[in-house]
Structure formats: C-alpha cells, structure tokens
C-alpha cells in the first residue's frame, strides 16, 4: 500500500484568466477521511474534477493510489470511485441496471458485476427498490445509489463532491453513517463540502480552502483548539470601552465585533472561570452587559478566523457565482 493514498503537489488550475486553484498541496493517508471545506466557488469542485480526470492536469503533480495522474490516468480511473455533485443517474434506468451498467463500463467480469451489485444494494438498503426506476426514488435514495455505484469497482479511494447537498437533516445523518461504514471497511474518502458540521463530524483531517488556496489544514479538533479554549459572546452598552477592558485581561487572546451589537472574545482558559472576572472588570469601568453566551469554537468560527468572513457572506456568494458558471 502506498504511503500516501493521494499526494498533490503545487496543483494550479485556471479557466481562461480566472485562477480557480492556486498552488494547492496536500496529502491523504490510506484509510483517512479527508475533507475540503470551503464556500461555493472556492475551487473545491475544480480540485476534485482534476483529481478524477474530468479536467486536465494543468500544473502540479498528483499521485493517487500510487499512480501518476499525468502518465497513468486510466490506472487512476480504475482505482477510484466518484460521487458527483449533481445527480448523474439515468432517470429511466432501474437501480440494478444502474449498477450493472457501471460494472460493465469498467470491464468487470459478468458474474462479479451481479454479485457486487447485489452486495451494494444491501449495503445502502435499497433491497426493496432493486427494479424501481431511478425517477421514482427520493433524493436520499438517489444519493445512496450513487454511493453504491461509486463502490462497484472496490475503489481504493472514494471521491465525493458535496455528498449531502440538498438533503434533509435526517437523510444527511444517515448518509454520514453509510460513509463511516464504507470508511471502516478500508476505503479512503476524499470529500468536499461547504457544511461545517459535515466536515467536523466526518473527517479525520480538514483542509480549509478559500479562493483557490488552502488556508489551514489539520484535524477538526486541532483546528478548533488553535482558536483558544472558549468563545465568549457579549452585548454591552459601550462596546468600545468594553473592548479596551477585555483586551487588558491576560486570558483574552482576541476581541472582534460580531453582528450589530456584539463582541466575540476568544479566551485561552476555561470560559466558565474567566467570565466572572471579566464581568467584574467591565462593571468596574461602568460598562453595562446586556447579554452573554459562552461556547466552544465551531468549524464556523475556525472558518471566520481564517478568512475573516462567514461561509454565507455576501462576498463569498458573489465570488461563487462568478466561478460557479465556469466550473
């Protein structure tokens, strides 16, 4: 088994004069779940399209499952499974036919195709839907079928581009269970997502990508720990004065505005112990507290910390719209 299941060095990709991916390097170890987290249009899909050979490799070096993408694209193709962002199923084929077609497309022996299709139908719990046309399946079922299809060839790596986009919360949670099962069976998983909870809950490691560059890469826990121990949200009558008071405290590592009336304070110690002290100091200087909340940092906070804006910021959206059309 190769040391790295995926190794990417200096990958760049441009569409005309738009740089969609800018000098990206990372590696994924065998058996890992690795996520690309970023807003729409950050370059996630472009990376996955290059890695899965749908876009040409313009610049950089990519090795997947021990095969060089530039010199042995067909061996890379044989080694991977893909679940695309949009549904790429034929509405007028049945569940079984969809799987058989995929097996034949990859030149698997006939008996093996049947056997494997049956196995996967059971894995994704579509036994009762075997002979149902795809157009009669729910959104979640279609996704499950696509995951099953991606696994037909027993790939070493399964690529998923936004696997739970457009699904309801319960269905998403079930999808994650399937993916954990697949990963437990030894399949390395590379996924892109713009959902914080998805990246957080599913991944061994996360790379945060924004505007074509990786801006942070670590385990979900370490990414969050790097922000400090706790986050304290405050609303006061005088945020300017409050900020000066807060920044004087040794446990406070950062203060920034949040929303129209709030302050977000990062503290390096247990928040429940620091806050009483902070409140005393604020009261002494005559600042009145209107509201208070203590929480552990989320991936959302990590993202804001690294990019200076939330995932749903206007800026991110319009950038996404510009890139999305030419993805």
């Amino acid at each position, binding site marked *: 088994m190769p040391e790295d299941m995926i190794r990417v060095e200096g990958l760049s990709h441009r569409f005309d004069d738009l740089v969609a991916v800018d000098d990206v390097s990372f590696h994924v170890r065998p058996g890992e779940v690795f996520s690309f987290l970023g807003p729409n249009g950050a370059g996630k*899909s472009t990376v996955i*399209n290059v890695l*899965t*050979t*749908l*876009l040409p490799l313009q610049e950089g070096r990519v090795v997947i499952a021990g095969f060089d993408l530039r010199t042995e*694209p*067909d*061996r890379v*193709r*044989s080694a991977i499974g*893909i679940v*695309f962002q949009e549904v*790429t*199923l*034929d*509405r*007028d*084929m049945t569940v079984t*036919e969809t799987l058989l*077609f*995929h097996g*034949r*497309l*990859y*030149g698997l022996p006939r008996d093996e195709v049947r056997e494997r299709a049956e196995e996967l139908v059971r894995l994704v719990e579509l036994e009762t839907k075997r002979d149902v046309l795809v157009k009669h399946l729910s959104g979640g079922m279609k996704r499950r079928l696509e995951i099953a*299809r991606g696994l037909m060839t027993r790939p070493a790596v399964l690529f998923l581009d936004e696997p739970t986009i457009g699904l309801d919360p319960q269905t998403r949670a079930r999808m994650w269970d399937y993916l954990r099962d697949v990963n437990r069976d030894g399949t390395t998983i590379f996924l892109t997502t713009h959902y914080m909870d998805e990246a957080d809950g599913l991944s061994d490691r996360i790379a945060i990508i924004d505007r074509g560059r990786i801006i942070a890469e670590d385990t979900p826990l370490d990414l969050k720990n790097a922000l400090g121990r706790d986050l304290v949200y405050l609303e006061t009558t005088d945020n300017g004065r409050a900020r000066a008071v807060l920044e004087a405290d040794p446990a406070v590592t950062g203060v920034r505005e949040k929303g129209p009336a709030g302050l977000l304070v990062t503290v390096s110690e247990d928040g429940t112990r620091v806050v009483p002290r902070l409140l005393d100091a604020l009261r002494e200087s005559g600042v009145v507290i209107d509201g208070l909340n203590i929480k552990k940092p989320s991936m959302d906070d990590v993202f804001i910390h690294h990019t200076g804006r939330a995932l749903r910021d206007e800026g991110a959206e319009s950038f996404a719209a510009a890139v999305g059309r030419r*993805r």
Partner: protein
Amino acid sequence: MDRRFLAIYWRDMLRYVRFRTLLLSSLVQPALWLAFFGIAMSSSFDAIGTQVPSGPGIPQVGYLTFMCAGVISMTTLFTSLFGGMSLLFDKNWGLLREVMAAPMPRSNIVLGMGLSGITKSCIQAGIILAFGLLLGVRFFDGYSPLRLAMAVGGIFAFVSVFALGFVFLSSAIAISMESPEGMQGIMTLLTMPIFFASNALYPVEAFPEALRLLSMANPLSHMVTGIRYFAIGPEFSAIGRTFVCSSTDLLVSFGALCLFSTLTFLFALHRVRVARVT
C-alpha cells in the same frame, strides 16, 4: 479485445425499448409515409408512367415500389440523425460524466452508439419492407430463395453502413452542443436538403446541374441506389424512365457510404476525445 462498447450499446437499447410510445411511433411513422404519401403519389404518377412503354425484357414497376427504397432510406436517415441525441441529454443531465471518468478508450462510446444505430435502423427497415410488401410494393419479384436471402442481406448491409455514418455525425454534433433545441435546429436543417436533393422520390437526371452533382455526392442517393439494386434489380423502368445500375455502380455506392461513415467516425471520435464534461 475491448468489448466495453457493449455496455454503451446495452444501455442505449435499454432506453429504446423502455420508451414504448417512442418505439411504437418510430415503427409506425414510416409505414404511414408509405401508406399515405406513397399511395397518393403513385396513383397520379402511375397514370403518366404507364403511357411510356418500357423496353423489351425490362421490368416495369409502379411508383410505390420506386419510392419504397426512398422511404427506407429516409427513415434510416431520421433515426440515425437523432440517434446521437442521447449523448446530449447525458451530457447535460445524466450519465456522460460517469462514462467519461471510466478507464475506457473513448472510441467505445462512438462504437456503442453506432451499433445501437444499426440495430434500430435494421429493425425499422425490416418493418417497412414487410409493410410495403403487404401494401403492394413489388420488391423481390420472382426471386429464388437464395437470391432473396442475398438481396435482404445486401439491403441490410447498405442500411447498416448508412446508419453508422449518420449516427456518428449525430454523435459528433450532440457532444459538441449545449442545448437540445440547438441540436434539433441543426438536424432539421440537415434533413431537408439530404432528403430532397437525392433520388429517393424522383429521378435526378432532370435536375439542374448543381443540384444533380449535389445529389450524386449525397450518401442518401447511394443508399437508395443500393436498395433498388437489391430489391428490384439492376435494370428496371419506372415513372417513364429506365434505371440501370451495374455492379460497378453498386460497388461505387457502397464504397462511397463506407468512406462517408469512416470520415464521420473519425469526426465523432475526435469530438468525443476533446469533449470535457464537468
């Protein structure tokens, strides 16, 4: 040998039999052409044609028999030109991404589409032949069983090569297009001159020079020539003229169709190879 084009073929045939109405209409439509256009035209043309006696020993056939080869050719043309359309749908809404990401030479896509085009066209040609005979088309008149078998084989060979040529052309266009509407437009634009600048419905000898040259380069004319040779004979008279087709003429026509489908194959292969689906 790489047989993965059979996966593409299998899937396209699956769709063909799944859409019952489409299947049925594609089989009934050519029969309707024969029944309405054929019978209507033959009743007026035959009134003129029979006034001119044919030479001794040359069989004379009615207009219905004459134009039946045209209807087979036209049907094959339509079916094949729309045969590549599914690539466009797959590209926009379906499986093409999966296919393009498979470790399979792209030629399999083109070959699979071609094979399914042959199958559909041969089924249709068979049905028109049978229906035509019922309506009174005088094909295979006085043939021995051996000659009949060879004639039917010859017709299917022409239908197949011709179908390949247009399925390849249609696939090449489909994979390069963005919208079905645009594709529809191009197809409509193509079918009109191909069908009418040919010998499918009338002799081309009386055409103005430019149109006559065009019809001689038209694959459809070669197709019709081949079918008439096998179904009626090397020499016959219809609508007041005598038609002669030597075996050399036949080979030239078959060669022209082979050349045509080779060129469109290369074109389609090129378009599929450069196509990006993301």
